């Protein structure tokens, strides 16, 4: 019962049938716009003309119910550029459709989708920045990850890596020149919040225009932690070399969740079956990561709201420490686990197993008491409520427009959790609930995380029960996988898992070699961070800081 999706009348959407999407009906809906149809592993792809993007996407959004533009992948082929819009639905993410927009090699440009999906704004800026496709009618087509003065587009084929780049610091530019950015109101002040600031959770730069203490205009500037993760994955072999890197996207203890995103995409790409026993271990360890990640999210959020080094932060860290010890026993590392393998996991549970189960059980037994304490200390505190209730409000529509996922979406009442809606691992066999809160404010997001910790604990408990009873001769942790994986050429896949921060998706295109031809990461933080201006316009600086904290971004994942 618990895993049943609250039903919404989706039958009206075009192409929805009892057993999945009817792509022919969708193609009929678009009529002559569809030039060609391609088969991707996850969904069908419709090729359309570059100047009809807005028309096609709004038709699909309005009439076929594709309200979630989860990712925009851009890539360069030998003969053309291509942008792929991965569309899916918030109320059923298994209904997917890729819209493929080719553009000519000599002058790559196509119409922007940012007028249809707000989230496409940043995604297209990233595509422009890294691959070099121009998007017509884009509201603000600038570089996003690289500095503005960068020459060339690093993921394009003719990019010269050895070309010297000049990045000006403009250190002696008169700071007062930019002071009055808002022209309607000359009494505003421009403040750089970050990249070195105690509350930006890393190297985020928020360009803020203040009217007194209130925020008149705000723009997150990202890219300070860009580490070419996509390109590094394109240079690694599927079988071994990519797996250590996902740990480093969302590096605060969500490692196994990230690894699973890659594992899921690559396993589906290469048709690898994962043994059930390994799936249970994966599920258990992934939920441990979720607990660790949410504990830290709560701790740092409290740090932003309480100020200074206060107790809540330490208590959060202390509880997270226990999970990390459990994970260390299992995987051999505290943060950079590298535990999953294609087709399974690296190790079985540590011996003696009973002792390990005992440890997990102790942790789970203590957890309710600890959460109680956190509720006493944080959520029950009137001043905390004063600070968080009705600040940083994000409506359901905004969530969908910006493609926000994870606790941010669920805090706004959008019932979207890939563990249930697009099941993988062992989740559909277990009994747990998807947590949602209707408030859409900072307080709701905190509550969602706290309650998700409880749900994760339930999942872990069931996994431990299963593992305990698992017959000894059936403990297969690893499927038989070729030593070198070479998926067939020109297979394309977009697969996502529910990471700690939301939908973590991977797009892989194979070209017949043992390395991916294109590896695109759809980072949940990247999309979630886009909502910050919506949340904080007109609010006070402290609320903006709190909203930023409640988004729970990790800059390693935003910038990749």
């Amino acid at each position, binding site marked *: 019962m618990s895993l049943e999706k609250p039903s919404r009348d989706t039958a009206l959407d075009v192409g929805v049938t009892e057993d999945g999407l009817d792509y022919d009906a969708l193609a009929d809906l678009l009529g002559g716009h569809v030039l060609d149809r391609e088969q991707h592993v996850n969904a069908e792809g419709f090729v359309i003309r570059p100047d009809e993007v807005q028309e096609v996407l709004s038709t699909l959004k309005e009439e076929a119910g594709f309200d979630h533009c989860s990712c925009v992948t851009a890539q360069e082929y030998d003969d053309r550029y291509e942008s792929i819009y991965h569309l899916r639905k918030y109320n059923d993410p298994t209904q997917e459709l890729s819209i493929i927009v080719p553009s000519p090699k000599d002058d790559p440009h196509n119409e922007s989708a940012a007028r249809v999906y707000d989230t496409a704004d940043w995604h297209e800026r990233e595509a422009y920045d890294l691959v070099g496709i121009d998007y017509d009618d884009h509201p603000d087509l600038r570089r996003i990850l690289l500095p503005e003065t960068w020459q060339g587009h690093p993921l394009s084929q003719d990019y010269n890596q050895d070309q010297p780049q000049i990045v000006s610091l403009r250190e002696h530019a008169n700071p007062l020149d930019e002071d009055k950015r808002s022209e309607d109101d000359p009494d505003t002040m421009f403040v750089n919040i970050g990249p070195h600031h105690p509350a930006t959770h890393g190297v985020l730069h928020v360009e803020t225009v203040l009217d007194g203490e209130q925020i008149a205009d705000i723009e997150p500037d990202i890219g300070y932690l860009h580490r070419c993760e996509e390109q590094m994955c394109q240079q690694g072999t599927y079988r071994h070399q990519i797996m250590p890197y996902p740990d480093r996207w969302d590096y605060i203890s969500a490692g196994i969740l990230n690894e699973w995103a890659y594992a899921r995409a690559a396993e589906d790409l290469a048709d690898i079956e994962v043994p059930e026993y390994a799936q249970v271990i994966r599920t258990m360890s992934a939920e441990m990561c979720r607990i660790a990640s949410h504990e830290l999210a709560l701790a740092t959020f409290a740090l932003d709201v309480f100020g200074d080094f206060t107790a809540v932060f330490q208590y959060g860290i202390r509880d997270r420490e226990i999970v990390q010890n459990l994970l260390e026993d299992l995987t051999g*590392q505290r943060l950079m686990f590298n535990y999953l393998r294609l087709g399974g996991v690296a190790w079985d549970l540590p011996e003696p197993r009973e002792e390990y189960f005992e440890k997990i059980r102790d942790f789970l037994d203590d957890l309710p008491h600890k959460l109680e304490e956190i509720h006493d200390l944080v959520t029950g505190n*009137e001043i*905390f409520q004063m600070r968080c209730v009705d600040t940083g409000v994000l409506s359901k529509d905004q969530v969908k427009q910006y493609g926000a996922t994870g606790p941010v979406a669920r805090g706004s009442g959008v019932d979207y959790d890939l563990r249930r809606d697009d099941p993988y691992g062992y989740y559909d066999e277990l009994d747990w609930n998807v947590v949602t809160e209707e408030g859409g404010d900072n307080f709701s997001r905190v509550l969602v995380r706290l309650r998700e910790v409880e749900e994760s604990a339930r999942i872990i408990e069931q996994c431990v029960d299963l593992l305990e009873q698992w017959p000894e001769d059936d403990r297969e942790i690893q499927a038989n996988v*070729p030593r070198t994986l070479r998926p067939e050429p020109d297979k394309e896949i977009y697969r996502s898992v529910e990471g700690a921060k939301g939908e973590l998706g991977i797009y892989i295109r194979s070209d017949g070699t043992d390395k991916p031809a294109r590896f695109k990461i759809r980072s949940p933080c990247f999309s979630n961070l886009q909502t910050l201006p919506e949340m904080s316009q007109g609010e006070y600086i402290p609320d903006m800081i709190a909203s930023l904290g409640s988004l729970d971004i990790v800059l390693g994942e935003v910038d990749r």
Partner: protein
Amino acid sequence: MIGILKSMATTMKHALDGETFTVEYPDVAPEVSPRFRGVHKWSQERCIWCRQCENVCPNNTIQIVMDEQRNGEQYNLHIGQCIYCRLCEEVCPTDAILLTQNFEFTADTKDEFAYDKEQLKNVPWYKDIDPLESREPDRGAWIGEGDGEVDYQ
């Protein structure tokens, strides 16, 4: 008001019970789990110079130099660049390269972290834990050959 008082009572309870969860490193060494991956230890006796570790390393941390007769000359490993993924240990057919539990290493410059053969041999065991024993690598599962073409790299 009740909530604020409750919060204050919670922290006071912690202050009064006198429990601490931090330890006084290095007087009290933290517990390292047997599977923990620390600095590498290398054994020249076991190494067969197959270069698989060099091949598998995701970020070119391992550098092997051999002469024309394919005799090993140098085995260099930059422990400051290493990401401790343990793939080298995993592919090694002879357990010549191991990751000890040793996590305590310091240097004045980055260059000092570029370990050569001798330095790698002399890395001490951590608390005499033998990593192989604790990890029980399941090699049978790991070097499966799949259904397709056999590939010996």
